[in-house]
């Protein structure tokens, strides 16, 4: 049975990790579009998959949400920003592609060209 008391343990563990995180700084920011268009296209499972995968692998990555990115027909859209703010935009993402983005881009710095917006729109 879960109780609010569990949060104390999580707090202690997270505090240790946070000091570590400050040092090596967040490596990537990953942003999911969560407006009506994104939600209707399936952005919620995409976001939740990313949160779970990032937590599982304890990656130095910040997961954020945003509103409409402006290309509704290509939702769900996921944007990955590196430390220098270089942006990679992934389009028509689903939970499976989201897992691949975490495994390749966030963990091994490999951009998955075939899922990027450049493949659909120039």
């Amino acid at each position, binding site marked *: *049975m*879960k109780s609010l008391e569990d949060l104390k343990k999580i707090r202690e563990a997270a*505090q240790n990790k*946070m000091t570590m995180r400050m040092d090596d700084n967040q490596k990537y920011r990953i942003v999911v579009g969560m407006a*009506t268009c994104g*939600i209707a296209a399936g952005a*919620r499972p995409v976001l939740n998959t990313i949160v779970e995968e990032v*937590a599982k692998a304890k990656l130095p990555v910040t997961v954020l949400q945003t*509103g409409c990115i402006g290309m509704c027909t290509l939702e769900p859209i996921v944007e990955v920003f590196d430390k220098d703010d270089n942006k990679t935009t992934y389009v028509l993402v689903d939970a499976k592609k989201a897992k691949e983005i975490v495994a390749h881009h966030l963990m091994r710095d490999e951009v998955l060209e075939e899922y990027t917006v450049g493949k659909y729109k120039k």
Partner: protein
Amino acid sequence: MDELALNILDIAYNSIRAKANDICIYINDSIKENVIDIEIEDDGCGMTNEEVGKVIDPFFTTRTTRKVGLGIPLFKQNAELTGGYLHIDSKKNCGTIVKTRFIKNHIDTPIMGDVIETMTTLIQADENIDYIFEYKTDDIHFIMNTKDMKDILGDVKITEPEVIIWLKDYMKEGLSQ
């Protein structure tokens, strides 16, 4: 959108965009009463009567990235298809409450869907917003207030992935009492 939970997520984002600090999400899903009532209340920037009239029009939106706003019109249409309704009460600078009723046994009433994912998604969106989440059926009554959790977490953010995953399990247990 094929789940009520997705509509809830979408409507609650309006509250976030309205700069709410506190958002209450109340669901009463009752076979006995044959209704699904969904209320989303916030203390955001609110709307004038004129604006309330406009938000049910799909070609009204406050955002600038595109010219249509479909959230409220979609939800309203879904509710009315089942014989229910969507009402908006709002006061400028005070907040907004969106009350929706679906007739539970109507063939067009969507499934509830994954309310837990909706709640964790909302909580993950902004660490500064507090949620009261109340879920009632004929058998269960679950209430959760993120303020209680933040008190325990202290300087650890509620949006930390580890906390979000714990929250998911906590709600799962609460909703399957």
